[in-house]
């Protein structure tokens, strides 16, 4: 019986792979739900802080914080949010492609590009390009915490404040729905003017301690919350992409098993027929 044993062991191996991909699919599905929940929870803070900055812009026109001033773009910083683990389809590749396009855009305009990388996939990819990497965090896990991101965000903010960077962008995958994740680049610094809304035209806050300190604190928190949002959204995207990729893998494994089973049955049938023919032939000879 040539072949049947090999086919059988092949089927067994594909089956065990399918078990793994199926488990990964289910794990990703439940993690995605939790990540989406965290995305939802982060929204009120981002909205509130946006309103406060809008009010600030309306209230305090004479003091301009450096984060609000647009400079000649000579140096551009890009924060790239990627996943720590693979097996999530084209998610990271798409984010990197968007980043590369953005980089080429600015390099064509004569700007220097430096990077800040969140997630180990991004680090592995961009290390090869030889561009300056200002900061990187890996191992954020499925629940990124604000405090894990603060360090690298601070590096970028300080570089901006010192004039080493004139623009800061963040590139991350945006969660459209389970099937679609769209990589998008958003400008973080300088902070684009936000509409003050429905307040009367002339009034000002009481500042405690001073306007500069408070603006600094609020704007810093705003940027941090934006980066946090990017990280959380990226996790949701990773899980959704992994879920879809693993579903496809499980389906493919199913098809493969079906085909192998067919080949196996044929081989077994052929072997039985051959044996029968041999017995009949032998009996006839006697």
């Amino acid at each position, binding site marked *: 019986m040539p072949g049947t044993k090999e086919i059988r062991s092949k089927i067994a191996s594909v089956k065990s792979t399918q078990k793994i991909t199926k488990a990964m699919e289910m794990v990703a599905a439940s993690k995605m739900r939790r990540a989406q929940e965290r995305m939802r929870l982060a929204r*009120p*803070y981002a909205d509130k802080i946006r309103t406060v900055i809008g009010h600030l812009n309306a209230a305090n026109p004479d003091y301009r914080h450096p984060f609000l001033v647009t400079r000649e773009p000579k140096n551009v910083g890009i924060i790239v949010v990627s996943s720590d683990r693979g097996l999530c389809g084209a998610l990271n590749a798409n984010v990197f492609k968007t980043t590369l396009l953005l980089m080429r855009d600015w390099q064509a305009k004569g700007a220097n590009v430096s990077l800040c990388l969140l997630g180990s996939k991004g680090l592995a990819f961009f290390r090869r390009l030889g561009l300056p990497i200002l900061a990187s965090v890996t191992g954020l896990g499925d629940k990124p915490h604000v405090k894990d991101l603060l360090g690298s965000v601070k590096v970028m903010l300080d570089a901006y404040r010192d004039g080493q960077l004139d623009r800061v962008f963040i590139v991350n995958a945006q969660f459209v729905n389970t099937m679609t994740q769209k990589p998008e680049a958003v400008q973080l610094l300088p902070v684009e003017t936000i509409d003050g809304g429905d307040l009367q035209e002339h009034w000002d806050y009481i500042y405690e301690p001073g306007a500069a300190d408070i603006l600094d604190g609020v704007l810093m928190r705003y940027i941090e919350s934006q980066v*946090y949002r990017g990280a959380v959204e990226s996790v949701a995207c990773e899980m959704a992409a992994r879920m879809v990729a693993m579903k496809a893998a499980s389906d493919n494994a199913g098809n493969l098993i079906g085909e192998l089973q067919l080949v196996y049955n044929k081989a077994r049938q052929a072997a039985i027929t051959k044996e029968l023919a041999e017995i009949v032939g032998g009996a006839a000879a006697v």
Partner: protein
Amino acid sequence: MADHTIHCDIVSAEGEIFSGAAKMVFVPAAQGELGIAPRHAPLLSLLKAGEVRVLTPDGQELFFFVGGGALEIQPKKVTVLADTALRAKDVDEAAALAAKQRAEEALKGKIDKIEQAEALAELARAAAQLRLLQKLRKIKG
């Protein structure tokens, strides 16, 4: 009725903590505790680690722990943007003590300035959490 209450929102980057009407709100501002009554003048301030107290219209007093943050006051609205705010009952006393111990141990050892600043901040935070817990315990009996 609308004139006797002020809308209070407490949010942190990782979730919404409280949203509702209040008779009075007390916050640990950078330069000392602030009591905010309805129709307060617009004010913007930073917060230090401590407790935010909210007096609700039905006479209840709610406690929230904030680890720092920012505060915005509009005549009809208070917004507390907390760095890490937890519900007071969730604050684990043992964890606070452990954090305090860690900070104190770190202060004793040989460390550079950055670590020392971090340790001091952690110490302040743990002390504020402990104070709040003791207060809560007193109220409960």
